[in-house]
């Protein structure tokens, strides 16, 4: 099923993530999952790691999932997904089932970059036929905004607070895409729910490819990044338009930009819109602008808007 989502009428109306889940008001992960499931369809198993999504969508006895779903632990979404894939494949081959399902492992940045990296690496290396979606809100949000290796430079979290001796997070965001691509997988892509067609087409491509695919989705979090609950989608757009979050895909090792940014927004606009960067001084902002400039060069993005 290689559908290309181009216009509104291409989008399935069915909601496979039901309303009534307990995600925060304005949570862009809710938007992301709705879009992903529209691209994936009903014949999909979702494997969640422990985190915002799992906790907010399956509080017994209510579940927001209208597709089969499972959760086992924090760090093993990728290995549980491997097991499901092999279980279904073996049963299909032995003619004990006729079901063929999409398998999507869904983990937050904590459950993917940190505690889940071993299981993810194993599943990617083994070439399991599944899609791993990392919804990246740049910290351990479910437990109250603690720093993860996805937390960007200088961001404030409860375990990397700014203070007399600290500027907040003192490391750069881990390049998870590079790590995934280094496994030689056929497809990897960055995405953002603010660009729905881009995200849904990438989901489709990821599912269609034979073997593992990795989708890294930036999901702005009003609660943890500290901005107004109405601002999530625009924050995602700003992340892309500043060049900080380039939207690209890597197909069999070849990188291709999918959303060009002809005139980049200055990083100041993005940083000053978020409470987690409130403590930044002009020299810190300048440093981060440099990082964004470097990304722009790497991906061939446009110059800064003056």
């Amino acid at each position, binding site marked *: 099923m290689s559908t290309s989502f181009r216009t509104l009428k291409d989008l399935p109306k069915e909601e496979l993530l039901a309303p009534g889940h307990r995600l925060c008001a304005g949570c862009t992960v809710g938007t992301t999952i709705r879009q992903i499931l529209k691209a994936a369809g*009903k*014949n*999909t*198993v979702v*494997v969640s790691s422990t985190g915002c999504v*799992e*906790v907010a*969508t*399956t*509080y*017994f*006895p209510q*579940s927001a*999932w*209208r*597709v*089969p*779903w*499972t*959760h*086992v*632990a924090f*760090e*093993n979404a*990728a*290995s*549980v*997904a*491997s*097991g*499901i894939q*092999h*279980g*279904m*494949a*073996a*049963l299909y*081959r*032995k003619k*004990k*089932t006729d*079901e063929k*399902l999409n398998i999507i492992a869904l983990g937050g940045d904590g459950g993917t970059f940190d505690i889940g990296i*071993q*299981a993810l*690496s*194993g599943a990617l*290396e*083994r070439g399991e036929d599944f899609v791993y979606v990392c919804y990246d809100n740049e910290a351990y949000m479910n437990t109250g905004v603690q720093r993860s290796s996805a937390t960007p430079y200088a961001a404030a979290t409860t375990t990397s607070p700014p203070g007399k001796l600290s500027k907040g997070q003192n490391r750069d965001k881990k390049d998870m895409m590079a790590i995934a691509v280094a496994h030689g997988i056929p497809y990897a892509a960055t995405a953002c729910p603010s660009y729905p067609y881009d995200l849904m087409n990438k989901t489709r491509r990821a599912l269609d490819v034979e073997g593992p695919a990795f989708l890294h989705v930036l999901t702005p979090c009003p609660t943890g990044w500290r901005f107004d609950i109405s601002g999530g989608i625009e924050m995602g757009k700003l992340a892309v338009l500043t060049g900080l979050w380039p939207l690209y895909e890597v197909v069999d090792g070849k990188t291709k930009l999918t959303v060009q940014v002809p005139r980049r927004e200055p990083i100041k606009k993005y940083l000053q819109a978020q409470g987690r960067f409130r403590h930044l001084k002009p020299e810190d902002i300048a440093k981060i602008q440099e990082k964004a400039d470097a990304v722009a060069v790497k991906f061939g993005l446009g110059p800064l808007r003056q």
Partner: protein
Amino acid sequence: MKKVGLSGNYAIAYAVKMADVDVIAAYPITPQTTIVEKLSEFVANGELDADYINVESEHSAMSACVGASMTGARVFTATSSQGLAFMHEVLFMAAALRTPMVMANVNRALSAPLNIWNDHADAMAERDAGWIQLWVSSAQEAYDTTLMAFKLSEETRLPVMVNLDGYVLSHTYEPVELIAEEAVRKYIPSRPLVNRLSPKTAFSVGVVGPPEYYFEMKYQAIDAIERSRMPISKITADFNRSFGRSYDDVYAYGMEDAEYALLTMGSMTGSARVVAEELRKEGLKAGVVSIRTFRPFPVERLIEKVDGLMGLGVMDRASTPGGPSNPLFSDIAACLCGLKDRPILQSFVSGLGGRDISPDNFRTMFKATKEAADAKAPKPCMYVGLRE
């Protein structure tokens, strides 16, 4: 049915092959490794049609098994010691999520210090996980029990751990009578094949169980393992009818008139029985009680078997540092504490980290049990074979 020379590990591998497993998660750890190696040969040669997942750790091995089991596939993995410890959290999940599967645990000591030899610490650390735990004492038993375990697991929807002592059983070759594969396929019916992750039902499995529900959900698994006693007996009796080898939850050796006995589990049983025979010739009414089904613990059967005994020495091959007693002793004491007439219990720890338990050690233990019983006062736990 001819007999072949097989190690305990290979006997298990053959059982897994004949059981027509669908998914095997494999990660190496001494002394279990030859099980998964043998299985990989079977798969590579087309003798076993299964998906063989070379996972990157034991935690992932168990996670993959849980996932595969949810789809209705028949799954198997094997581990020991550190590997079992590494999958600790997932073991609890497997039992609570009611995912049928069989795992061979080749008993090995837990670090530190690093030790690849036999003791029971690994399985004992998981005794609260909610798994059915069966302990074998021979390669034949390892083969037979693994076959029974698949049937048991699928009937009770509880995961089953088959324990066998590292090196002593895993690597030692013994004669094993293999059952013809067609007969095994008839004995273990096709797995129930319910895909709990089917879009037809769209279940959510593994959810948040808040305080108002967790207690009841946990109790379901407790109830399930309690009720598994009947299926265990039935399946064991069935096996005997079909293949002529009988097994029991608790074995009594020389217990018809024994006054002093040792309680054992695993391979040490054989040695204990040999020494008991010798002591009988010397006039001591010695017996050996041994446990095959550790979880669910066969409370009634144990009470039956120790009826009339004056002294029971409990052999732990693991310890509970700082505890009032060691793992097996705790269970035995709990079984017997409510009885008006019960044997005097003497606690022993021996054989840790693969330390051989010699016939002399057994004599020491029988003697100490007799002394404790005669004095009607047990001594504090004796660490037999420990150098000061």
